[in-house]
């Protein structure tokens, strides 16, 4: 009967209900944000056009400001922007100090400082050409944009929920990191407690002796806590493993070992041009795939239950899809019009945008509205 009632209700109502459910504030699956950010970073890696890169940074900042929550990691974005500024500055300074002065348009002539023979025959300063500085700027801006994209993922994705999504083979390591993340704040409390106890005994709070008097008890406290934690984990059934037939274990081991051998050979082939082409990247990727397959197979041994698992819903798919689409469009733009995406430094030209590049940037910006809004701070805590 309920089925009939739902079925007979007007389509408009259903869509509006879906829309309001869509707009409900919730945290997006962290994997979706990471895929989006990695897509943007890939897009940034395929161009040195400063206009395109600046637009990408702007879009990333827009999405972060629109959709970041109130957790402490949400404030990390600013740090990444500053890191990007430092990278660009470093590249340019390196070009000025150690550039060697190739290029026609000399901006300034700094006094040259030749270094002695042991310093690889390097000379410092000398003429500074516009081409050289601009090349450093383009290169640095590309790297900085990629970093800022990753910074956006850091600010938007909840690391604790991401750890819940690790594959089974990494379950133990993921659990250790979760333990570390939850114990770290308790250490502060432990330090305060030990210091209070010391003050009650009339000890001073300064100097090397005070440091030892606080640090060692805190360490001992933490170690004791780990034993209590292990007992709690045991009593809740941690470490339950599924029985794995011997045949499957052999397959896993063969896959992992064979894959790693392939990776080693592929790396060698990549760095040695005398060998045939298939020994390079293809072998490396095949080896990685085999090893990862073995790892995932080994993860089936782990049995775990999940409390409130994060699910991939339409919003997650769309956000991740936006990032991947942006990367694809940028690669396409590079094949259609490589000159505009890698504007030449000499002769000096003004960089120009292409329609495909603009489309890639626009697609990258869509999650600013498409993603569900972040959960607001509860009133009593605000």
């Amino acid at each position, binding site marked *: 009967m309920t089925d009939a009632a739902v079925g007979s209700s007007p389509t408009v109502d259903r869509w509006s209900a879906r829309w309001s459910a869509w707009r409900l504030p919730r945290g997006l699956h962290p994997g979706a944000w990471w895929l989006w950010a990695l897509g943007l970073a890939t897009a940034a890696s395929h161009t040195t056009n400063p206009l395109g890169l600046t637009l990408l940074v702007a879009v990333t900042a827009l999405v972060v400001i629109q959709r970041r929550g109130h957790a402490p990691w949400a404030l990390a974005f600013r740090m990444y922007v500053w890191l990007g500024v430092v990278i660009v500055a470093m590249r340019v300074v390196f070009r000025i100090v150690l*550039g060697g002065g190739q290029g026609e348009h000399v901006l300034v002539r700094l006094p040259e400082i030749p270094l002695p023979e042991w310093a*690889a025959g390097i000379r410092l300063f000398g003429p500074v050409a516009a081409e050289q500085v601009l090349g450093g700027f383009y290169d640095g801006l590309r790297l900085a944009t990629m970093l800022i994209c990753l910074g956006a993922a850091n600010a938007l994705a909840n690391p604790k929920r991401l750890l819940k999504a690790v594959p089974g083979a990494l379950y133990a390591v993921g659990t250790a990191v979760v333990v570390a993340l939850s114990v770290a704040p308790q250490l502060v409390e432990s330090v305060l407690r030990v210091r209070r106890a010391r003050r009650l005994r009339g000890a001073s709070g300064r100097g090397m002796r005070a440091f030892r008097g606080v640090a060692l008890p805190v360490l001992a406290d933490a170690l004791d806590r*780990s034993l209590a934690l292990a007992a709690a*984990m045991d009593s809740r059934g941690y470490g339950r493993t599924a029985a794995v037939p011997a045949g499957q274990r052999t397959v896993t081991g063969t896959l992992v070992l064979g894959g790693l051998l392939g990776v080693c050979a592929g790396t060698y082939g990549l*760095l*040695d041009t005398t060998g045939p082409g298939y020994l390079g990247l293809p072998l490396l990727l095949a080896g990685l795939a085999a090893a990862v397959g073995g790892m995932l197979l080994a993860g089936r041994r782990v049995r775990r239950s999940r409390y409130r698992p994060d699910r991939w819903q339409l919003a997650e798919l769309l956000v991740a899809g936006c990032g991947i689409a942006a990367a694809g469009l940028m690669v396409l733009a590079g094949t259609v019009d490589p000159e505009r995406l890698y504007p030449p430094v000499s002769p000096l030209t003004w960089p120009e945008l292409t329609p495909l590049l603009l489309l890639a940037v626009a697609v990258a910006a869509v999650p600013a509205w498409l993603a569900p809004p972040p959960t607001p701070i509860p009133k009593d805590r605000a």
Partner: protein
Amino acid sequence: MSVLRVAPRTAVVLVLASVAALATFTWPLFVPVQPENTARAGEAPLVFVVMLPVLVALVLAELTSGGIDSKALAMLGVLAAVNAALRPLGAGTAGIETVFFLLVLAGRVFGPGFGFLLGSTSLFASALLTAGVGPWLPFQMLAASWVGLGAGLLPRRPRGRAEVALLAGYGAVAAYGYGLLMNLWFWPFSAGADTQLSYVAGAPILENLHRFVFFTAVTSTFGWDTGRAITTAVLIALAGPAVLAALRRAARKAAFGAPVTFAAPEPGLPASLPTALLAAQAGKPAAGQPAGRDDRQHRWDQHHPLGSRVT
């Protein structure tokens, strides 16, 4: 003692992955000339940036595949938390690095496999806490893991002052090595392509090495890296004995590797009890010969007043 048993297969995986990973650090030294134009030459390092996280994940999965004891896991998490909390203490102050100190000591006490895991988890937890996840993270994790692994592989014989001296020396060397590796990784990204300090594709290894040595000497070896080596060595020398004792005490308390059996409680009393109580322990085995399970069961039957009825 070793908390985490490293099976032969795991050791092989570790060596293979380390060899491949070393290439991701050192590729600028022997990268061939790229046939494409220079703007696209940036693709080769990207392959390695993608490859290394997978390699690190593989090794971590393989190390824990034997099923890691819950006590070892909790210890790992707690020590990683302490390390992650120590790390920001030094950041920003030139070259003061506080991570390696506990990593080296814990690697020494808990063995190479645990040291490797601790290096990775510490840096990963620290990156999550400070939202510092980036392409550099897998490289830092692996370099720190090697530091912890090496600390576990040091000769076991020295104890007392010799041990602290050995660990302090190792800490200083490892701090320099970590700095060199991270510089080597960062070199192509920081100096860019066309400066006199950049790597030259296709040049002989020695020439590139010469350039790199100069780059690292100028940018960090005499500043950051020396600061890091000194801090690590001094911290180990000053606080090492006390921390080692605390860690060993925790390891003894946790009794890693003790077989879990479900037998009736044994009457073997701790040695600190008054001798009058010890008299009951007539069947105590000779020192250095741990009693097997069946042996204990046997003694329970013999000496406990309720023995025969309980079994």
